[in-house]
């Protein structure tokens, strides 16, 4: 049986049953939870025998221009299903989120990576240091406004050559 993807509303319903008020939003693909409740929600998801989400597949930090979000992919090895959890921080300079390292040791390096490249501070991480870049590196390069490009975003690839409005200006 291939991996079953638990839908956002399904996960939200189960969380709400134990931790009312913890869910902020539920989309078909993911569930967004209160940052303050994140550790409690993960503890519930991990320990609940019907969910058994014991394996943290991946932890990704994303800069969405006006906020930061961290995406958790949680997998059950016994029941073979996968759930996607999100937590957001609306603080733009020094975003903070609780660390899930007490539950998932596998987050140690992944949170350090998100701190290094996006500057998300994980409260409760045992050893939050830069991972790839050296101490004293200016800023956090995966942020969209790194280098202070106009429009608060790296110019990036806006279109394809030959398309109307395509410009190669500002591309490295």
């Amino acid at each position, binding site marked *: 049986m291939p991996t079953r993807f638990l839908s956002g509303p399904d996960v939200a319903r189960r969380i709400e049953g134990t931790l009312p008020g913890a869910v902020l939003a539920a989309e078909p693909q993911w569930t967004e939870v209160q940052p303050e409740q994140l550790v409690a929600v993960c503890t519930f998801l991990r320990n609940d025998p019907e969910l058994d989400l*014991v394996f943290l597949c991946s932890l990704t930090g994303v800069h969405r221009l006006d906020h930061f979000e961290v995406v958790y*992919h949680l997998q059950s*090895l016994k029941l073979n299903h996968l759930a996607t959890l999100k937590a957001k921080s609306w603080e733009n300079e020094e975003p903070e989120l609780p660390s899930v390292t007490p539950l998932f*040791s*596998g987050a140690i*390096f992944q949170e350090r990576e998100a701190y290094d490249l996006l500057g998300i501070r994980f409260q409760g991480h045992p050893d939050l240091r830069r991972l790839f*870049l050296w101490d004293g590196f200016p800023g956090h390069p995966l942020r969209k406004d790194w280098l202070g490009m106009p429009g608060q975003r790296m110019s990036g690839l806006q279109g394809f050559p030959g398309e109307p409005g395509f410009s190669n200006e500002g591309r490295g």
Partner: protein
Amino acid sequence: MKAEPFVVNIGPQHPSTHGVFRLKLSLDGERIVDADMVVGYLHRSMEKLAEERSYTQNIPFTDRTDYLAAMTGNLAYVLAVEQLAGVEAPERAQWLRVIMCELQRIASHAMAIGTFINDCGAWQTPLMYMFREREKILDLFEMACGARLTTNYMRIGGVSRDIPPEFMPAALSLVKELPQRISEYEGLSIENEIVVARARGVGILPAERAIACSVSGPMLRGSGVAWDIRKAQPYAAYDRVQFDIPVGTNGDCYDRFLVRMEELRQSTRILEQALDSLPEGPVNVAIPVAIRPPPGEAYGRIESPRGELGFYVISDGGPAPFRFHIRSPSLINLTPLREMSIGMTIADAIIILGSIDIVVGEVDR
């Protein structure tokens, strides 16, 4: 009297670190009391660069993350984009993907086993044996796509080109001789005193710690957890082939080595079936060069030789990914290195690192 721990730096330039990787060990006499790793010497900021390049232009980056297994890197990324764009590769391409990935797994595991025995102290000879089969596989890659290491073979919606007529006979003769070669390696190494004395009972990782640390691939299976994404979430044509998942019992370096050895056999088994059932037909579907997947996100993952290789791609409807994240098994498999090394000696730490089988290009990205 209490003495300060003595700090030894292994690497970044050291033959046993398999790349530019630095291991900082604090020692009390012979015993390791703390271990820290310093990575980033090979950081090329691929995730940032990818945000400025179109979806197709990003495929070559995936060759250069895990440069010992470029085919699997290609596949994980194109699967994520296919999921995002709603594209399905034709049947022949699905089978070609299986063939290439299993060849790649054999080539990569051969290197992993060879360097591991090298680390144990059987200097160079076993490694050179492993290179013999790896060369033949790289020759096959060269036939299929013109490159040996940075293959850039998979495309969104298929593969870049069909295999040439000389590929099949060469692949079939390789698959025919592989079982005998694997027995030869097993005869040389499994009972070998050098390997057994150095690896058995060293670097034990219990199953519950392996799961907590998000370890994947042969390392997780070495700890006795039968978890393989080819079985759990079959991609390409893996749902139509028969194979077994080898697992270890003690979770030590020796078990991880045995699991890789057995996976060589299982990959050969998959190859036999895949070469036999390769259908005729097109190898890719026409997709626009200027592909703009609808806004959304996708997590594509596969079982690479090192473990769960995942690509988390977010599209904002533009020509380039909004976010391109690589879940690299090499980096995450290093998580339990510290706890496995504490209490051991330097010589053991080298074996433990060798048994994790990292590729620094993938650790640093």
